[in-house]
């Protein structure tokens, strides 16, 4: 899932930087799609990892609701340059779900250290990136384009931080997988020796 997100994010950056969509009318549809896709992937990750059925249901309905809202908002708002409001809603919802997830994790007695789980690093990546870029995206429509470039540097920094956190998450996941495989091999080896 992270691979899909990373590829998609990279492609969208390429499209944006090299202005592969020249028409500003079509660009807003592209931005809207990126926002919906990002929201759907982030919230789906949380959906897979929370245990509360109520929150799972809220996440599912929010994905559908958010997609519909984004479509209506983009289609019916004239001269829209940037989907600031949608990004604001996306950030608030993802932050809420992320903190709920962390709350659930600290209440689980079987989890010894939160930062030994890959979920923690991925979720922290979401939180850092979304909270760091929240105000910039929210007011992007009110800043002249030349000034906006300097703010984009901040977004890039948070994007890099997000990627670092994601990488740590992947590393933790791979290490845990390796450790499980080694344990299984040892168990299998002992079993065959006993037989």
């Amino acid at each position: 899932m992270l691979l899909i997100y990373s590829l998609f994010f990279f492609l969208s950056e390429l499209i944006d930087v090299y202005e592969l969509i020249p028409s500003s009318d079509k660009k807003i549809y592209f931005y809207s799609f990126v926002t919906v896709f990002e929201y759907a992937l982030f919230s789906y990750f949380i959906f897979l990892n929370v245990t509360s059925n109520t929150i799972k249901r809220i996440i599912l309905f929010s994905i559908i609701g958010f997609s519909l809202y984004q479509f209506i908002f983009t289609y019916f708002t004239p001269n829209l340059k940037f989907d600031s409001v949608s990004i604001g809603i996306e950030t608030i919802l993802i932050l809420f779900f992320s903190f709920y997830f962390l709350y659930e994790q600290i209440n689980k007695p079987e989890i010894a250290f939160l930062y030994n789980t890959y979920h923690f690093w991925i979720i922290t990546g979401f939180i850092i990136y979304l909270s760091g870029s929240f105000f910039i995206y929210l007011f992007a429509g009110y800043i002249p384009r030349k000034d906006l470039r300097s703010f984009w540097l901040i977004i890039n920094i948070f994007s890099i931080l997000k990627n670092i956190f994601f990488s740590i998450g992947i590393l933790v996941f791979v290490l845990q997988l390796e450790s499980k495989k080694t344990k299984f091999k040892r168990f299998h080896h002992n079993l065959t020796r006993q037989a």
Partner: protein
Amino acid sequence: MFLLQSTNTASIQFFILLGTLGMILVVGCLVGFVIFHQRKVIRYQLKMKAMEEEQQRILLSASVHSQEEERQRIAADLHDDAGPLLATARLYLSENLVNMDKSTQLQSIFQVRQILDDTIQLIRNISHSLMPPTLKNFGLESAVNDLFQKISASGSISATSRFHDYKERMKSEKELNIFRVIQELVNNILKHSNASFIHLIQNVQGDRFVIRIHHDGRGLAQADFERLNRSTTGLGLKNISSRIQVANGRIAFDKDTHQSYYKITIEVPVDDPLGFLKQL
């Protein structure tokens, strides 16, 4: 939004920077709080686990200690009482007995028989103290009633017991554990409380076998029991804890609702006749 449109770009930029910093600060604090809270919880859990292990260690050591004491007592009884008795009997039955006259022989045989009767009684007493025969043959109700009748017969204290719901006997180990707990508690009441009466009631509440002991002397509160249980002294109380733990039960010390009598409640799960099915 109108306000924003009327504000100049510099203030918006300042607002964005301030907002971003504030957001990062708040989010950082929240994530930090989550991590530190979890570490605190884990540290607390580890501390609790260590305390539980320490408690288990104390109980185990108390149990070993009490076993050793019991062995020493039996060894002393056998050595100091049964040993001399049998040695005396052996003296009477010396080789010279055949050379003695008939009346002396009869007297010696009579003496030996007396000594052997005393020895049999002594061994029976030791055996009874290890496993009361009433408990073994007739169950907890009879053993407790027997114990309370003996106490009452001494005349120094009034002791009564009533079993309301004890139709089927429990497993013998469980009965013995409960009996020993009652015995220890009654001993403590006799030794330390200066009570004028002890009253025991038994009933069943749901799946719990409940025994309540009331007395009007000086008693223990739950906090006192737990404190003494954690300390290195109070072997009897540790044995009680250990036996209750083995029976998978609980014990509570408190005063009754009128605050006039001390009350000890013992609760153990009733034996499930179909329990073995669950283990399959």
